[in-house]
């Protein structure tokens, strides 16, 4: 099992995370089904999943920690390492690629000062390519934390990067579902 690269021990999970867990387990006819929802819950709390978290999940759903690790390592969305404050995912699948997502990525690497697949030195951004995120009519699309940004043209990378930097000061960013007329609504 990979250790967290940070030397400081991971903090405890928030009380509301702990409080929500039993309700999630109770939704399922078999407890083990709650593995993924609990892992999502942990990751939303601390940004990644630690070894201790996996032990906690294993105990709640009645499997071995190894069986939880199997799940964590299978699904691309789960991570065992901390990432930047904003997780920037650029779609590289065909529809977006035709619309210029590779050029967009190159420009974003410069604008965000962050090589693809890595976290920027200031810890603000983690920049990655991802596969199709199901918003193909509005390519290139960029998924940032919980928010979708559509029609991000390569030539607008600087403007887009500035917009993302501004969101670092906005605690409400990505917290609420979109409203009509905003991205994720245009299809």
């Amino acid at each position, binding site marked *: 099992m990979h250790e967290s690269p940070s030397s400081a021990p991971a903090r405890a999970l928030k009380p509301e995370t702990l409080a929500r867990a039993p309700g999630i387990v109770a*939704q*399922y*006819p*078999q407890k*083990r*089904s*709650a*593995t*993924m*929802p609990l*892992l*999502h819950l942990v990751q939303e709390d601390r940004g990644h999943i630690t070894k201790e978290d996996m032990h906690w999940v294993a105990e709640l*759903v009645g*499997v071995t920690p190894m*069986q939880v690790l*199997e*799940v964590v390592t*299978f*699904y*691309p*969305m*789960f991570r065992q390492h901390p990432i930047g404050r904003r997780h920037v995912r650029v779609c590289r*699948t*065909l*529809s977006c690629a*035709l*619309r210029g997502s590779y050029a967009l990525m190159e420009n974003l690497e410069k604008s965000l000062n962050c090589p693809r697949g890595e976290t920027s030195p200031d810890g603000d951004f983690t920049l990655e390519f*991802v*596969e*199709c*995120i*199901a*918003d*193909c*009519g*509005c*390519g290139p699309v960029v*998924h940032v934390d*919980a928010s979708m940004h559509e029609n991000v043209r390569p030539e607008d990378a600087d403007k887009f990067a500035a917009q993302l930097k501004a969101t670092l000061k906005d605690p409400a960013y990505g917290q*609420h*579902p*979109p409203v*009509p007329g905003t991205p*994720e*609504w245009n*299809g």
Partner: protein
Amino acid sequence: MPAVERPLIYANLRKPGYTVDLDCYLRHGGYEALRKAVALKPEDVCKEVETSGLRGRGGAGFPTGMKWKFLDRKSGKPAYLVVNADESEPGTYKDRQIIYKDPHQMLEGIAITAWAIQAKQAFIYIRGEFIHGAKILERAIAEAKAKGFLGQNILGSGYSCEVVVHRGGGCYVCGEETGLIESLEGKRGYPRIKPPYFPAVLGLYNCPTIVNNAEPMAQVKHVLAFGGAEFAKIGIPGDSGTHIWGVSGLVKRPGLYEIEAGKATFGELLYDLCGGPLDGRKIKAIIPGGSSTKILKVGERFKGKLANAPSSTGRSRHPPRLQQHRRVRHGLGTAAPSSSTTPSR
């Protein structure tokens, strides 16, 4: 005749001011089809869906009514309904709209389907990346439960069904029904071997399970609203209802187009509705149904299992119109043409 849209599923969600809350849905005739369904016997609801000729929208185009018939009802084990909203086929983005803009329409279809197959528990397996989508659905479920459209004693019928939203983990293979079931059980999403693991017999928790795509769940509502025989008149024999075509790539107006099944060619779709390729380009090839289908080059004849209407890409009206191309219908994956174009010289 140029291709025209026939919005059925997208009819409401495209109206300005249409919102995701239950009140708005009820103002637009919401849950009337469910009322109709619970007044019928479950087997009669199944019959309506069979008569309607509705087919799956996940790519294989399997008749929905027949799928429900295969459900093992003699085992005595509980039956489960699993809705596949793990929309991850490249080029496919139709379900996102239903989930984000009209969640109750899908929930009504789920309630009707659950009643028809007598499932007490339904799961919506949604893409992990649809973080807000999951929240919108959860809120909609809570609203529907409070008004008795889901949960305990649905519309006073004595029948109960709980719906749980389950987020995936960004894994493409979990869109395959047996992989999805494994994932829902809290394991790695490795597909199971058929036989013996046909979901209708040995599905979730080795119980009889119906796995349906999200779009037919929305269609089922309309099957009940129209009645099976009336619904069958939309589209063409053997493929009824509408298909939502998600067009992406280098066309002027990429987007989602809801068209009666079999009533438009690819050429009509790409030129009449999408405005053709971007200026200075010409169409080189299309991927008709997500990356799992064969790339079709301009001028190529379609040869497939369902090629009962094979035709080549003609040039009769607007060159290089894919005019005589195979009619847009089932058997072509998830209805997601991506157009690759090349600069014209």
